[in-house]
Structures are given as C-alpha cells and as structure tokens.
C-alpha cells in the first residue's frame, strides 16, 4: 500500500509541472498587453522599464523558472513565517524568518512574491483572504449533496422500478440537466424576490457573533449551497443507484439472506459497503468539478470567493492572478485525484498492485 501511495505521489509531481507549463504557455501566447492601458504620452523607454518591472523583458523559460521559484519556494516561506509568528494554532513553533521582503533598503537577493497587476499586492494574500468563503460554500454544499444523495441512491436501487425510484430518477435527471446559472437566478426570483425569505446577495463581511447573526448566515448560505448541492446530489445518487444495482443481484447477497440476516443488515452492511467503493472515488473525483461550478455560483450570488476573483482578474487582464488561481484549481484536482486513487486502493484490495 505504501509503495502504491508513493508511486502515485511521484506521478503527481510531473503532472503538476506539466499543468503549470500549459497554463503558463497559454498565458504567454495571449496577445493581451498589460501595457495597453498606459497612456500614449509615456515614452517608449519608460514603458520598456515598466515592462521589465513586471518581469516581461526576459525569455519565456526564464520567466517560467522564476514563476516556479516564486510559487513553490517564496510563497511557502511566507506562509511558514506567518504560521510560526502570527497563527494562533502554531505559535508555539520557533519563529522563522525565511522571507526577506523587497523594499527600498532590501538586500539584492530579496524575495519577490507573485504580485497582482491590478493592485500590486501579493496574489496569495488575496487568495488566502477569499478562500474561506469559497471553501465554506463549496464544502458545505458538497457534504449536503452527499448526505442527500446516498440514501436516495440506496433506496431507489433497493426498490427498483417503484414509484420512489421512478420519481427519484426523474428528479436526479432534471437536477443533472439544469445548469447552475439557471437554478441560481430561478431560486433568487422565487425565494428572494417573490417570497423574500433569503437574501439574494451573499454578504461576506457578515460576522457570526450571536444566534441571530448565525441564523442570518445560514439563511444567506442556503441558496448558493442548494444550487451547488443539487448538481452533486444528482450525480452521486445516480452512481450510488447503479453501484447498488450491480451488487444487489450478486451471489453473496443471496448467501447473506439465506443465512437469515435481516434485510437491514444485508443492505447496509453487505451491499452498501461494496457499493461504496466506486462511489467514494466518484465523490473524490467530483470535488474539482464542484469548484468549477462554484465559479458560476459565486458570480450569481455575488460571493466574493476565488472563483469570482478569477473572473475579475480575467476581465482586468491581470495575468499573474489568473495564473495563480488556475494553478490552485489544478492543485486541487491533482490532490483529489490522488485521494481518489489511494482511497480506491484502501477500499478495494484487488486493484492494489504492489
């Protein structure tokens, strides 16, 4: 199992490098010029200097190498410094000082962070600020979706072709087909405009201090979470149903029944455990997709998470930010692929070839 895991980890590194190169080259090929907005009165040699300040004067491979250093060496050192000095959880660790910021009196080998072209502040700082919003909405919706989907899948497979199964299959098919950019506005029209139950705009400055503010937080999270959860539910319950159906007709189920086990034990212990093997991997593999859906949901409900930030940066032609956020999405995908692979190995000894 350990060699299996290590092999997977080793494969993940070139994958990430390849993806970063792809994104980098895509942005390099882009015809957009960050200097396009600079007034024409600025002399060309000043423009050239500005270009170099943005790191644009050098050949592509040097830029790529510098970006790699920035992302994989400098940003982590900033993070470690922050962790050991300011974070409440890891304050007890000895204070580190790995990062030397650039400034007027900085040494020549100071560390330049990935800076946004929009506001000249480090991209990662903004990402870290915005990530919690995305993670709470996305994470909660995923958990809600799974919790709804699994019982539906189990029951509709157990009572195949019953009314519940027919209705459940139809509803999941509908949920699977309606895109989030339609369900979002639809829910806003019905529940915010028509009934006035929930706010239509997600207020990220809202702080939970007492019961009332907690209730408000729940109310404003409900709609974005439901929109995202609907996609998850539809997908996972379909998989759950198919996996249960595959297993329900197997010989071991008949044996279990013949031994006189109760139906609950047969279904929950025997069938469910075997059916969960493919479903767990589907759950892990679905995480990146839900982040993609989160981009749209964040735009619809005006949640200022990293998805909405990506769209902002894209329209502002802010390539370092676009690059960083896309790459964060890529890391998430590779990470969850890895988790899915390892889970598959843990759950199903047959595919562990070590």
């Amino acid at each position, binding site marked *: 199992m350990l060699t299996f895991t290590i092999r997977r980890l080793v494969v993940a590194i070139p*994958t990430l490098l*390849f*993806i970063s190169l*792809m*994104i980098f080259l*895509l*942005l390099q*090929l*882009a*015809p*957009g010029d960050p200097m396009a907005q600079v007034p024409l009165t600025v002399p060309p040699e000043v423009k050239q200097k500005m270009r170099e300040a943005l790191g644009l004067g050098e050949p592509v491979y040097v830029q790529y190498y510098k970006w790699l250093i920035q992302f994989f060496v400098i940003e982590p050192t900033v993070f470690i410094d922050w962790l050991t000095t300011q974070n409440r959880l890891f304050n007890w660790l000895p204070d580190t000082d790995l990062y030397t910021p650039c400034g007027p009196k900085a040494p020549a080998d100071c560390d330049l962070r990935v800076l946004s072209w929009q506001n000249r502040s480090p991209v990662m700082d903004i990402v870290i600020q915005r990530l919690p919003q995305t993670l709470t909405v996305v994470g909660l919706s995923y958990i809600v979706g799974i919790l709804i989907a699994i019982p539906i899948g189990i029951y509709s497979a157990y009572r195949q072709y019953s009314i519940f199964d027919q209705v459940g299959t*139809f509803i999941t*098919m*509908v949920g*699977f*087909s*309606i*895109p989030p*950019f*339609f369900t979002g*506005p*639809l829910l*806003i*029209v019905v529940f915010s*405009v028509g009934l006035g139950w929930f706010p239509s705009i997600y207020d990220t400055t809202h702080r939970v201090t007492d019961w009332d503010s907690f209730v408000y937080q729940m109310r404003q999270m409900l709609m974005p979470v439901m929109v995202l959860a609907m996609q998850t539910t539809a997908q996972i319950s379909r998989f759950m149903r198919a996996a249960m159906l595959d297993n329900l007709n197997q010989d071991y189920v008949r044996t279990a029944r013949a031994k006189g086990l109760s139906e609950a034990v047969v279904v929950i212990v025997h069938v469910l455990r075997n059916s969960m093997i493919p479903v767990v991997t589907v759950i892990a593999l679905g995480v*990146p997709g839900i*982040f*993609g859906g989160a*981009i*749209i949901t964040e*735009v*619809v409900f005006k949640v200022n998470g990293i998805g909405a930030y*990506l*769209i902002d940066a*894209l*329209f502002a032609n802010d390539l370092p930010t*676009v690059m960083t*956020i*896309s790459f964060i*999405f*890529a890391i*998430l*995908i*590779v990470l969850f*692929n890895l988790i899915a692979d390892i889970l598959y190995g843990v759950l199903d000894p047959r595919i562990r070839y070590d």
Partner: protein
Amino acid sequence: MTEPTTTPLNALAEPEITRPPRSQWHDVWDQFRRHRGALMGGGFLILITLGVLLGDLIWRLDPKGLDIQNRDVRPIITAIWDSSAKVSWGHPLGSDNLGRDHLAQIIAGGRTSMAVGWTAMLLTMLIGTLIGVLAGFFKRLDGILMRFTDLVLSLPILPLLLVAVTLFRQPLVKIFGSPEAGMFVLIVGVIGVTSWMQTARIVRGDILALKEREFVLAARAAGTTSRGIITRHLLPNVLSPIMVSATLGLATAIITESALSFLGVGFPSDFPTWGKMLADAVPRMQEFPERVMLPGVMISLTVLSVNYLGDGLRDALDPRIRGR
C-alpha cells in the same frame, strides 16, 4: 411467406424460417422503444432542432429588429392574472427593453446554441475516437497517449476555457472577419480540445479488448492492412459506446457554451444565444422573470432530453440488457 400447407410434417419442419431475419439495429430500436424517457427525449430533441432550424420561416420577425413602441412587452399569458400588463399578440413571448421579439430571439439563439453543441460534439468525438483508436491499436503509442489523456484530465477546464476564450477573442475575430464566426470557431475549438478525454478512454478500452478477438486475427491473416482493420472491423464495433458518449458530449457542449456566455466571455452582445439571453436578463429579473425563465427552460429541456436519449441509447446498445 407462402400459404401454410396442411401437412403436419411441413409445419414442423422449420418454423423459425418464417420469421424475417432481424438485424442488430432492429433489436436496438425495439429495446430503445421500450424506454419511454428516451423516446420522449429523442422526439423532443428533433422537435427543438427542427424548431430552431425552420422556426424563422414561420415566425418571420427579425430577432435584431428594434420596435421601440412595443418594448418591455410581457408574454401574452401574463394577461390571465394581470389585466393591466402590457401584452400584444405581435410579441406572444414578449419583447425586451429595445423591443426585440423574444420568440424570434429564442429561435435565433437556439440555432447558435445547437450549432455550437453539435459541432463541438462532433469535434470531441473525432479527437476522442482518433486518440482512443491510436492508443488501443498501436502498442507503442498507448503509454504516451494515455499519459497525455490523464494529464489533460487533470487540467482545470472551466478556468482554462475562460482564459482561452478571453485571450484569443481578438486575434480570431480578426482572422475570420466577423465577431460571430471568430467566436464560433473559438468556442467550438476550446470545447472540443478540452472534452475528448472520456471518449478516448472508453474507445481505447474497447479497442484493446476487440483487437485480440478472432475476427481481427482472421482479417490480419487475410492480409488486411492496419488501416483496413481499423476502419472496417474495429470502428463499426465501437460505434455504440461512441454514440452514448456523443449524447453526453452534446449536453456538455450546450451547457459549456451557455456558461461561457453567462459569464460574459461568449458571443458578442448583439448576437443572441440562450446563455447570453439568460445572462442579459439577470439584472432585471425582478421585473421580468420570464426573460430568465424562457432561455433557461430551453437550455434545461434540451439538455434533459439529450441526457434521456443517452440513457435510452446506453440501454438499447448494451447487448447484455437488450432482449431482457
């Protein structure tokens, strides 16, 4: 069949010969017909396709034609509960803030959405089948092509699509002369390039299993070239998984195009597509909810029918299920 003779010996002889021989596609159709959702989905898809193709022959209003006197007209059905609403038989589904007719826009927008969906799906199938067949058939290419497929599968697709469409909009528009043509090629291209992976995997798996079978060996012994084996013996046998993933590809392509339009990186603003109409309607959806509903319902119904069609096809083309 000839008149049945009265001699019992003749009647016993070979009764099954009386049945006409059935082809595989006949069986497939029989199984497909039993899936009610798939039948309805298929019928509805044909209806929508015909509607958007031929709709402007019946409903002759120009989707871009401005009619300032009849702007912000509500759908005719609003008159049932709100007698003071501004309705007109000239615009049965209403008109927008510049007086452009909604029905005509839905037809024109649907044509774009369906065109993008079908073309992107065909491109996806082409790339997926090509890579799948190459990887499955030629052992030397297998490792590298499948590693490449895995790599592309772990790309963050939606961010990359957004980036590609935003960054390459201007040069392509310049190359193709008109903004519509440039955007069409760009969107179809990026959807095709980023969604072929599942098809490639399925096709490769099937080709790997098929090429060890005796009929391929026989074809090879008869001196058939690799190209002949692939086109005449292998491709017809992987047609059914390709068709199933084609339905999925069509659904994904329609949704992706609408999502791009919704996020504001799709077709130019005076060029209606369903996603674009939906996005344009969102700011004023409190006063005019039907402007969100119409394109949204059209996208959802189309995708729903395509998904049902795929479900039915999967059942009908699976020989283990067929005939049960």
